[in-house]
């Protein structure tokens, strides 16, 4: 294979893996020193539980289930357990995997399934809501939900923001009652700032992929964005992304490519089929690099339109002269920050997502789009065929393939490869000799 560009592994790769593993071990061991455990989704507003102390650990359900999906045997065991309990096979595959592990009392990282002290969850995805209701009942723990489905960010009003902030204030009361601890505003404000740093910086890192050659490929990015899904309000996550940003900036300066034979750039969408990430390596045999997706960029990344009209990480409030020194200011800015999440917008109108996807195509110099019709996630699949139509109408080459992020039984590798082959032919790409 002819290498057009120099390439080298990411220096921070090992550290990312270590941080991730430590997160899961911390959750399991939280009780060893009297710490607290809570569970919710990666979209839970985790800065609030952080106000209960520095020994508060979360288990965010989706990344945990995605990790289980890599272990096909255990994933199937969990899904079978959920189905034996009576849950339907066409439900969210992450949810089935989590429930199954809970009912089997088996943790991916060894030992019994650690029981949370409480559930703290946001509600915008229907599966997420039901998921944690069942966990709360099964584990007999208190639960709290913040309804964040207040409409697209572009239409946000003070009244809608007040609605969310009001719930966050109630959430603090819940946290104090459930934990028996006093809420610490200093810790909370620090967590809010860390989350803003993490999510803005992740967006900055993704924006560096606009150049050719792309310094990062999407398969690698999955192992990096995941840290924000685990604990975006933690210091370690924010600090890691700052370090990563510097490394990726350096790669851009030196022209280091993720895929040394990059000749065509792809964009994907929705979660990938986690047990078949080799499909990305298959793409590379054609010289195709997936530069990312709205999913990878904006599941946790927070973005804004810059003065030059391009997309970049949202400016931190204190860099605009807005100081966060008290609880109510923190709550309000925090709510606003999260409500602007790009990956929350399609729940209201698929056209908003199509617009963002076309922006990525333009700014990231994308040649073709690959949509994973993910039967494992109704939330992120919502409106995806409208997205397909909108992108095709804009003249962008696009293909779809069916699969499931967590349930490998619904992914046909041979058929998907055939689809990829046809799409690469459409783009004028041929497999390059090794």
């Amino acid at each position, binding site marked *: 294979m002819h290498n057009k560009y120099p390439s080298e592994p990411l220096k921070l790769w090992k550290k990312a893996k270590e941080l991730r593993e430590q997160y899961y071990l911390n959750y399991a061991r939280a009780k060893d020193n009297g710490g607290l455990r809570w569970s919710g989704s990666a979209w839970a507003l985790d800065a609030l539980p952080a106000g209960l102390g520095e020994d508060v650990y979360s288990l965010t359900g989706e990344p945990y289930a995605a990790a289980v999906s890599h272990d096909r045997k255990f994933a199937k065991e969990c899904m079978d357990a959920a189905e034996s309990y009576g849950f339907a096979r066409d439900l969210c595959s992450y949810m089935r995997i989590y429930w199954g592990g809970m009912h089997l009392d088996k943790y991916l990282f060894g030992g019994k399934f650690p029981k949370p002290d409480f559930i703290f969850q946001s509600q915008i995805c229907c599966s997420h809501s039901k998921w944690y209701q069942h966990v709360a009942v099964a584990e007999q723990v208190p639960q709290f939900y913040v309804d964040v489905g207040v409409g697209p960010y572009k239409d946000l009003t003070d009244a809608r923001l007040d609605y969310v902030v009001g719930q966050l204030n109630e959430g603090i009361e819940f946290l104090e009652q459930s934990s028996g601890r006093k809420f610490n505003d200093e810790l909370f404000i620090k967590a809010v700032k860390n989350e803003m740093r993490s999510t803005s910086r992740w967006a900055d890192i993704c924006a560096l992929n606009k150049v050719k050659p792309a310094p990062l490929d999407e398969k690698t990015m999955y192992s990096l964005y995941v840290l924000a899904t685990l604990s975006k309000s933690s210091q370690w996550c924010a600090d890691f992304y700052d370090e990563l940003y510097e490394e990726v900036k350096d790669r851009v300066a030196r022209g280091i490519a993720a895929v040394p034979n990059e000749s065509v750039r792809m964009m994907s969408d929705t979660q990938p089929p986690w047990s078949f990430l080799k499909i990305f390596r298959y793409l590379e045999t054609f010289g195709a690099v997936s530069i990312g997706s709205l999913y990878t960029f904006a599941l946790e990344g927070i973005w804004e339109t810059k003065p030059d009209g391009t997309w970049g990480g949202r400016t931190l409030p204190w860099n605009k002269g807005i100081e966060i020194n008290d609880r109510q200011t923190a709550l309000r800015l925090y709510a606003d920050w999260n409500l602007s999440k790009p990956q929350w917008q399609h729940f209201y109108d698929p056209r908003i997502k199509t617009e963002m996807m076309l922006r990525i195509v333009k700014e990231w110099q994308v040649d073709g789009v690959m949509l994973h*019709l993910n039967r494992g996630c109704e939330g992120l699949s919502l409106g995806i065929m409208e997205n397909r139509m909108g992108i*095709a109408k804009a003249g962008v080459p696009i293909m*779809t393939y*069916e699969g499931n992020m967590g349930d490998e039984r619904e992914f046909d590798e041979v058929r998907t490869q055939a689809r990829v082959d*046809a799409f690469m*032919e*459409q783009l004028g790409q041929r497999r390059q000799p090794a």
Partner: protein
Amino acid sequence: MITAGIDMGSRTVKVVLLEEIKVEGAPQLKYAIKKTHIMMPGDLDPDQAAEKVYDDVLTGAGLKRDQISAVFATGAGRKQVAFATEGITEMTAGAKGASYMFPLARTVVDVGAEEGRGMKTDEQGRAVDFAGNEKCAAGAGSFAEAMSRALQMNLKEFGDASLLSDKTIPMNAQCTVFAESEVVSLIHSATPKNDIAKAVLDAVASRVCAMVRRVGIEGEVVLIGGMVHNAGFVQSLKNAMGVDKISLPDMPEYISALGCALIAAERQH
């Protein structure tokens, strides 16, 4: 120059030999086409079958392997054609072959035994968008075949029978297996076989049409693949797509193999 295209389908192997004919003063190359269509030998593995069929075709044409400039393969078993110069997908091959036969084609529909595909093509015969059936054969030939068996007809009789019906009976079953039960129920309720045949072919056409609409129906529509021989299906498809005409090649099963041979010839230049 002679090139070959081989379409390794799930049930049959189709081979096309293409000889380039240079006509003085003619702006475009012309081709002489020889074709052979052989059922997959049941006692051979796909790679052995490909070797045998190819050698048989060459012998019949009085040619040797070293006289063939390139062999391109397509179809579900294309990776099993060890001697192929290159493999290309059915989308690309079908689009090319159909466009060669019908230069104004812009929508190509390929309905075979197990798969249905829709391709949007450009003036060079390239597929610029495509859609295929996923995990379900209810929009392909094997569905029609299964239902014709339930009515105790062969496929030709089945297709012709449907043309004698003017009724529209919706089939409710989405699944080939359940549809057979539905056909049996229709038989027991004394529904005429012609009407049942039309109902089945309307259902297949409806699914194919829904798939093709994803790439858009524009310009001349060409149907390729074995279902071209089913006149009833062709009529049902016209009705479903809302078009007056669907172009039908004389050798519908060979179009993908032809496309392969054409692309092989293009790439030798």
